[in-house]
């Protein structure tokens, strides 16, 4: 299922932070995990992911380090305490927003 791009991009930072809050990951791994978990709804392009990741690192929300895995050196990302705080805030905002949307949709159904 392909979703509206603008709907996804706004919450992408939250989704990336959520992924690395569970365990440290490298870029390709994030895209792959996101794709699998969203049942192929989120086909995030690497060209979108890396500017977000590097921007989060600049703001101190994530930290990166090099680690060897399967014979290749990969750049892993881990979440910082300020990243965790940001994730909590974004998740709270998202829940409020989705509850509001659900409420409106439920109203429409009951009117119909």
């Amino acid at each position, binding site marked *: 299922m392909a979703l509206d791009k603008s709907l996804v991009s706004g919450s992408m930072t939250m989704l990336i932070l959520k992924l690395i809050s569970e365990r440290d990951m*490298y*870029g*390709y791994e994030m895209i*792959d995990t996101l794709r699998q978990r969203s049942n192929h709804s989120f086909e995030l*392009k*690497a*060209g*979108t992911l*890396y*500017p977000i990741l*590097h*921007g989060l*690192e*600049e703001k*101190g929300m994530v*930290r*990166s*380090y*090099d680690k060897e895995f399967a014979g*290749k*050196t*990969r*750049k892993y990302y881990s979440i910082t305490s300020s990243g965790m705080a940001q994730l909590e805030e974004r998740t709270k905002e998202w829940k409020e927003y989705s509850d509001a949307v659900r409420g409106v949709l439920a109203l429409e159904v009951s009117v119909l």
Partner: protein
Amino acid sequence: MMEEYIRILLEQIRCKKSHKYIESEIRSHIEDQIEENMSRGMDPETAERMAVNSMGDPVMTGTELDMIHRPQMNIKLIVMIAAISIIGVLIHSLMLHDSFLQPETEMISGHYLRDVIIGLCVMTGICFVDYSVIARFSKLIGGAIIALKILLIVKSLIEVNSAVKWIGYGGIWMSWLLFDMIYIPIFGAIVYKNSRQGRKGLIKSFMWMYIPVFLELLSANMTCALIMLISMTAQMYLAIRKGWFGESYKAAITALVSGDVATPSIAASVVKAFGSVFPTNTFNLYRDIVAGFIANDERNYITGMLRTINKAALLFGDSSSELSNSMPAADNQYMLTYINCHYGIMVGIAVCLLIGWSLFYMFRSLIKQNNQLGLIVGTGCLMIFILNLALNILINLGAFPIMECWIPFISAGGSCIVLSYALTGILLSIYRYKNVYPSDVDVKMPKLKLLLEQ
């Protein structure tokens, strides 16, 4: 296809220093995708084309990355340093018009403005020179400083009245303090180079740490030895905490504490046995320093005098001209007492708070640093500032025996001033490249052959 994508993407990023690290990450991503595509049965060419297509627009990605990976100037810190410099120039200008002035103070304060200008030039130069480039040559620079120190000690054994604390030729002489203190950030880079070498790296780092401290203790350069020991211990602690040597945390910390205790003990034993061989008689110098800790010893009269002057100081304004006559020369060590005595305690506190605030700001900027090399080098710079300021305040309050230390940026003397600005230059350089380099930066020294070819 992949090469073309990477070329276009990197063309958008103006800061060339970051290219290598961005390229490595993007290339690794595309290669992973190609592998995945091929495992699904695609031929290599199709797998590469599909992988590149899944990356998106290289121009857009490159432009966005360019906005992030740019050298940045720490304007806030520059403004703070400018304010401190102005205050320093103001205080030293007023000192020059002071009737209490002694010839040596006139000599030092008279050159203050010149030294600040030299310091600012050094700071600007270092700030623009990438600190990771200096780090590449850290072992060479560190080795040269140790070799020079050994030469100075040998020279002092041969020649009577040989200077062990000054180095120079002709009319230009520099305090050895400058080399000792610069060794600390250089040591940070050496530790970084030794990381990931396990126990071997840990032992090598200990050698680079304790040998110069031992040499300083041997030449009775106690303040430098103390500041070097504490600063480098902090850097080693940081490296061990971050698991750079892969050793067990407890074993490495035990080795560090043991080394911190053993080095001064061995140095003291050597001095006790052979100290009188030195023309400067290191043993006597040791005895005087120990005497400094005994309150009623007659050699401790300066500490008593500083206490009396500070007790008589007013909150604001000049407290007494009589006392100032008995004050030791207002050079490096006693600037704070001079300020307290002539302008009031509140002015002294304000100056210390301003410098303390700048140091706190430097610390806050540093801990946000993702680059590990920057973190350990910057920790060394900051430790030098903090220890000198703290020791100087304690000495001026008469709570610590007299040692050679200085208030960053304010204490006069060419070497202290240039050092303050040079260390700030390193911190500015670390901040400048914080978004250019990733956490791990390549600091391998270029091969000689490669250098010659260039």
